[in-house]
């Protein structure tokens, strides 16, 4: 019972931090929309062309703009040792990582969902593609949070070069992009692709708490 209270306390703190950092989220969404404008202007006003490439462009820009915020994943809590305080409060590192992934998913990725339908207007996408995009983004962004947790915890002691962390995320995200774009294709089976995406999400949900916790322990030891 006390543990559940502490979990709620953790989410409450994350929510407070989210509201004080809300400008970061807006700048990420602004980055997303500005890059969409750049693509639209660069491709020209051919309606059919925009419709064909729309889903791919939206997916890759969503990926790029949400990797922007990954650096902050553990950095603040690690630098001022709040992670140690929370751990001493009775929450294991694995649970901290899991809660952190969930809060990143709710507070950073879900707000992006609201911007997807607006972005689809610029590419004149048909409504069923918008549904597919939103559905695959819900699963894909969860995978992104798990991957982001792994790469951010690997980079805790790396103060200079964060692009290496983004490389890991981009590399492992290729299969997710393939399956997500595949749902749009009329020849492929929609249900099996969604099951594949869910499978990938469950694999990373299993892997990331243990691996991130191990990286955090290693980083705390060498701090």
């Amino acid at each position, binding site marked *: 019972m006390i543990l559940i209270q*502490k979990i709620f*306390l953790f989410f409450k703190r994350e929510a407070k931090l989210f509201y004080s950092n809300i400008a970061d989220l807006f700048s990420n969404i602004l980055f997303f929309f500005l890059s969409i404008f750049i693509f639209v202007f660069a491709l020209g006003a051919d309606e059919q062309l925009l419709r064909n490439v729309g889903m791919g462009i939206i997916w890759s820009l969503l990926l790029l703009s949400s990797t922007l915020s990954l650096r902050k994943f553990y950095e603040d809590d690690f630098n001022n*040792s709040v992670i140690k305080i929370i751990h*001493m409060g009775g929450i294991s590192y694995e649970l901290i990582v899991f809660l952190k992934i969930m809060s990143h998913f709710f507070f950073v990725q879900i707000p992006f969902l609201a911007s997807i339908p607006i972005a689809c207007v610029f590419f004149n996408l048909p409504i069923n593609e918008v549904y597919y995009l939103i559905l695959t983004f819900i699963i894909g962004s969860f995978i992104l949070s798990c991957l982001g947790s792994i790469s951010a915890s690997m980079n805790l002691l790396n103060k200079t070069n964060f692009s290496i962390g983004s490389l890991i995320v981009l590399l492992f995200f290729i299969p997710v992009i393939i399956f997500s774009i595949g749902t749009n294709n009329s020849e492929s089976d929609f249900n099996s692709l969604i099951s594949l995406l869910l499978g990938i999400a469950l694999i990373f949900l299993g892997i990331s708490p243990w691996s991130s916790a191990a990286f955090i322990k290693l980083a705390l030891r060498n701090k």
Partner: protein
Amino acid sequence: MLLINNLSFSRNDNIIFQNLNLSLINRSITQIRGKNGSGKTTFINVVLNFLESKTGEIFWEGKNIKKNIFNFYNKTTFIMDHNTCTRKMTVLDNINFWSRLSSSKLSKDEISLLLETFNIQKYQNTKTMYLSSGEIRKLELLRLILEQKKLWILDEPYNHLDDLSIEILNQTFIDHINKDGVILFTSHLKPSIDNLEVVDL
């Protein structure tokens, strides 16, 4: 009571301390004294199991702490040498977070009384990033009273504090010892506390 048995730690073949024995009985206060870089903070981190010791064991109330680490953490307040408050949250938010995390039973009135003693009550709703380092330090030290744990482990508690706050802190230490507590702290200063045991590192 805390028993430290034959503890040694080395980093890259560089021996930081070796064969350290220490027993902290109830109602005792112990200072680890040493010059800069002598390994005081490392020692504290080894005691709290954040660093793996090379040899030796640590017992809390007769049980090896590694067997049930959360049982040990549940009885311990740890004040680090740097500030652990969240800079983007207000003073009151930080205090509420700490008190709920440690399931503290202190009421709201008691907390505001505490803030008054340390003279930071007027900053209740200010974000901690706007406070001076001495005020943040006092906020950190509030955790000692807030968490109501038996064992206090402090790393350089006197940093940034003015004379009056040092006096209050010493008085708090004495009150805690009289309430059957155990205190272990590191410092390079020589504080004026009665019955202070000093271990040189």
